[in-house]
């Protein structure tokens, strides 16, 4: 059949219905090619009787080796007469681009894009608001610092990841359009989300509970979609969640950041760069093989926590301190931090923040469902934890208090039992127990003041010194022989290491020596034979040194990470 004949018969065939069907299918393919998931959904819901066609088109789309990028077309369509001076053109363009970048002159031409303004900067590179000249649409363009790529292999991986990301379509995920290289600069383009990010939202103060739950539900749904596509985000944090003008959240930066962060020589340190506040313990500990979907659940919980309380569960000035907290301590319950946070939501949040992945929600969908239950006023799945578990949590939350109270209680109980069994002098016993009681109350008081940021530095010293004073007093009134009870001093030196401050350790060692010297002066009968107290004191000083040295090493590491954090921040400036 020749073309003209075919045309003729086509015309006969084409009733208005036929034309309509064509129009629908054509539009559907256009949306697929563009990667416009919303329009695809919309169209298919309006044309249910064409669903079999849509299914066909969908599987055809999956077969396509070409990514949904309308952007490739202009490249293939470059008029041929441009070839003669094409080389010069691009060189001029390049010079112009570099000049524009150096002087921050906008708009600045960048291949098929016009950079309009810089909207953000990070360790990875700069983000621009840009107009795609061929389509006239505005997009966000992220330029990757070439220095962030260690090898061609890494560049390759970056493109592969971008490709995968480009296939994702979800109402709450920032769509990736294109990835490429212009003037030696690698870049990718994505949907432009006009608005702020989640960080800015809760910086202004805690978000109302219902609103927070609603936002998190949308984010969790997007994360669930990522998981369904075998992608673990690994870097969920408020600054990666963008908000549009209506306040809808969009998850961005999945998969791409991790290539930059995990590779190269600084393998492990890389994963700690940036804020560890939202990092799950398994990631903070560097157990990269244990990272799973449940790691993202933790980060979602940390985001919810931030929304509810206005600050992340763990936040110290120093990234390593935060890291240690993430690994070992427990955040205060959101209900206790901010009045009016519903208990159920608090439970949901804490279930996400469990240290052990097995205790968290196992999938993002479960979290979405539980948030749904909360929003509908139904009872949630997250249950208050058992007594042992909550005791465990408390010990992690307040280790300084927990160690002291445990020590005191054990000692007091032993003394009480001895008293019942052997029936020593009642006055003597009362005096001892009174000191214990005061010490107990004093510890509670110190912990209470410790929560106050302004006084916490002073209270560390005060607490360490007062402990020694209590111990010395207690030993002073204790009947001879003191013998093994003197172990209290070395214990206090070691315990002071828990504040992770070299000066506190030194102070504690110093005062322990003084306390011991005073005790020996007052209880002269204990210092016999005379060389024993000297040996004891020397070992105590040595012990203080060892503890101080270990704390010091931890500090060094900590400073190293802090510097790294800043230098990576500076390098992008």
């Amino acid at each position: 059949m020749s073309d003209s004949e075919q045309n003729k018969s086509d015309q006969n065939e084409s009733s208005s219905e036929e034309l309509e069907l064509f129009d629908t299918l054509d539009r559907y393919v256009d949306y697929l090619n563009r990667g416009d998931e919303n329009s695809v959904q919309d169209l298919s819901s309006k044309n249910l009787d064409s669903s079999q066609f849509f299914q066909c088109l969908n599987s055809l789309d999956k077969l396509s080796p070409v990514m949904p990028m309308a952007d490739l077309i202009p490249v293939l369509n470059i008029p041929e007469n441009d070839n003669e001076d094409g080389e010069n053109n691009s060189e001029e363009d390049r010079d112009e681009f570099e000049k524009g970048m150096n002087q921050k002159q906008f708009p600045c031409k960048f291949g098929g894009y016009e950079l309009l303004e810089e909207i953000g900067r990070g360790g990875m590179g700069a983000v621009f608001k840009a107009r795609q000249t061929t389509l006239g649409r505005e997009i966000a363009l992220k330029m990757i610092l070439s220095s962030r790529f260690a090898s061609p292999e890494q560049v390759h991986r970056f493109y592969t990841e971008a490709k995968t990301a480009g296939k994702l379509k979800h109402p709450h995920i920032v769509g990736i359009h294109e990835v490429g290289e212009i003037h030696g600069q690698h870049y990718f383009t994505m949907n432009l989300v006009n608005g702020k990010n989640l960080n800015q939202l809760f910086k202004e103060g805690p978000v109302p509970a219902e609103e927070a739950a609603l936002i998190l539900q949308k984010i969790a749904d997007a994360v669930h979609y990522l998981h369904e596509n075998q992608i673990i985000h690994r870097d969920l944090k408020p600054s990666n969640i963008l908000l549009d003008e209506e306040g809808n959240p969009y998850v961005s930066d999945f998969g791409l950041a991790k290539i930059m962060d995990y590779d190269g020589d600084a393998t492990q340190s890389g994963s700690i760069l940036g804020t560890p506040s939202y990092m799950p313990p398994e990631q903070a500990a560097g157990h990269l093989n244990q990272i799973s979907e449940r790691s993202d659940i933790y980060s979602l919980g940390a985001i919810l926590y931030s929304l509810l309380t206005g600050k992340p569960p763990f936040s110290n000035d120093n990234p390593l301190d935060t890291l240690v907290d993430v690994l070992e301590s427990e955040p205060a319950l959101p209900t206790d931090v901010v009045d009016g946070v519903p208990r159920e939501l608090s439970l949901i949040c804490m279930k996400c923040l469990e240290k052990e992945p097995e205790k968290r929600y196992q999938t993002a969908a479960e979290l979405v469902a539980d948030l749904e239950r909360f929003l509908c006023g139904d009872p949630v799945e997250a249950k208050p934890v058992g007594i042992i578990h909550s005791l465990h949590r408390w010990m992690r939350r307040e280790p300084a208090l927990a160690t002291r109270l445990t020590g005191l209680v054990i000692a007091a109980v032993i003394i009480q039992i001895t008293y019942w069994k052997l029936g020593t002098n009642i006055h003597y016993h009362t005096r001892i127990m009174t000191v214990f009681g005061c010490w107990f109350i004093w510890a509670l008081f110190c912990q209470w003041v410790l929560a106050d940021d302004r006084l916490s530095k002073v209270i560390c010293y005060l607490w360490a010194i007062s402990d020694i004073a209590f111990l010395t007093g207690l030993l002073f009134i204790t009947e001879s022989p003191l013998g093994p009870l003197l172990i209290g001093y070395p214990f206090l030196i070691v315990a002071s290491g828990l504040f992770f401050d070299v000066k506190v350790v030194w102070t504690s060692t110093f005062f322990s020596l003084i306390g011991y010297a005073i005790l020996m002066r007052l209880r002269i009968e204990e210092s016999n034979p005379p060389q024993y107290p000297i040996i004891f004191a020397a070992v105590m000083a040595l012990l203080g040194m060892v503890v101080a040295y270990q704390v010091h090493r931890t500090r060094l590491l900590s400073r190293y990470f802090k510097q790294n954090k800043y230098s990576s921040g500076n390098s992008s400036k």
Partner: protein
Amino acid sequence: MENHPPSEMIVLLNLARSGDQEAQDRLFELCRNYISIIARAQIGTWLQTKVDASDLVQQTLLDAHRGMNDFRGASEGEWLGWLRQILNNNTTDYIRKYRGAEKRDIRREVSIDQGTPDNSEMKIQLQSDCDTPSQIIQQREQEVRMANAISTLAPDYQQVIILRNLQRLSFNEVAQDMDRSRSAVQMLWMRALKQLKEIMDVEQETIKDNE
């Protein structure tokens, strides 16, 4: 051969790995259409003048045959993803070869080279599926069935589907490539789609019957 139940490929794959020559041949036969359709879409019209897609398919299946022992995956998705990856590598090699050696001879290639993001972008496009195995787990049987369905179409139907749906070209470009009027290719496309839909419907039913 079109109506294979989904598990057949896995059965064959396991047999082939244990050294069953017949199963191996049959396995490659099952995947031939799939590879060939993608290969045709990948090399695009601008290379078609130089490379025959069937060479590429042959090369790919040969490589897969030789490298069978290197394949570590277990699922259909991984198997097909692996094939696609070999195909991608081969395509890149072909492009490099023809670009390097005969760059000046083909006008269109030069024009692609002069474009802005050009080189890298073209390469990326071709490498779109070298995903890590974990990302390929999505089921691809539907794709295999679709590839088989396309292979049964008349040649010009096949071409219009590949250009419009797999290469994502606009109808103007399709018309240009096929050297026909725009309305003609649009009609051609509609017919091709209707036939595809019918084949797939029959497929679906026979699968249901089998189950």
